[in-house]
């Protein structure tokens, strides 16, 4: 799967979050990380060609006043023209991911929370864009208060981000399990081979139990 990450951030080098995400994506072979603010004014034909080559398009940005920075809006206006994205439906069937970071805690973004509005509400225009252009929308990957995250939380984010860029259905546990097993399969360390085999056996057992449960529920 080829993934194109579209990053909108006016001061990339001053953003620890974006630097962390960039470093996390670097080892991934089929991932292109494209910084919009450095590509202005946009070479529209090249931008469109990149989009056509990708299987997954990921829009990545911080929330500024509850929306993406200006470069993303400009890019959408210039590149996602009616003739390119809407009438010919050339992007249909690809997936659209959203990686959004903000400086408030996650719980601030809900009804009755400090911001009083949910992330889903704020990102609704991208869901509309996906619908209009035939893209399959993934649940957003949200990153709250990166600066306060512990080492353990950052480790989890690194893996979650890599899965978000490369796994067909990154929110499904079975797909995550397959990703872990695939990563461990590359190891030649005998201890890791035993570890991978054990995890595989557990996963097989889990899937078999889920199958049994599905059959039991059918009989209800």
């Amino acid at each position, binding site marked *: 799967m080829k993934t194109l990450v579209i990053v909108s951030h006016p001061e990339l080098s001053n953003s620890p979050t974006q630097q962390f995400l960039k470093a996390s994506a670097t080892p991934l072979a089929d991932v292109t990380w494209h910084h919009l603010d450095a590509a202005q004014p946009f070479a529209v034909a090249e931008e469109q060609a990149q989009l056509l080559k990708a299987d997954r398009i990921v829009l990545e940005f911080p929330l500024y006043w509850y929306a993406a920075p200006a470069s993303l809006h400009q890019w959408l206006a210039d590149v996602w023209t009616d003739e390119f994205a809407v009438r010919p439906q050339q992007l249909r069937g690809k997936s659209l991911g959203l990686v959004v970071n903000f400086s408030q805690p996650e719980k601030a973004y809900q009804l009755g929370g400090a911001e009083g509005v949910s992330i889903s509400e704020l990102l609704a225009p991208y869901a509309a864009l996906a619908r209009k252009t035939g893209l399959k929308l993934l649940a957003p990957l949200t990153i709250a208060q990166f600066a306060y995250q512990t080492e353990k939380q950052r480790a989890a984010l690194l893996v979650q981000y890599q899965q978000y860029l490369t796994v067909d259905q990154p929110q499904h546990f079975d797909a995550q399990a397959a990703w*872990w097993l695939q990563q461990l399969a590359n190891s030649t360390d005998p201890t890791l081979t035993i570890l991978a085999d054990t995890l595989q056996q557990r996963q097989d057992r889990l899937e078999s139990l889920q199958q049994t449960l599905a059959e039991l529920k059918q009989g209800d």
Partner: protein
Amino acid sequence: MDDTTEWLLKTAQTQAEQAKSYEEAAFFMALQTFIQTQAKRLEQAEGEVDGRTWDHERW
């Protein structure tokens, strides 16, 4: 926690401590969370199968 889960977690922890790069350390730190989640799902699924199998009202 069962012995296998304990061994898996300990092994992942050792790998994280001996990692040669940040990415490798992060991988094994996050693997511990996956091991715990998988173990929990397994326990819940086993419990649910047992519960449904031994529910006499469904016999």
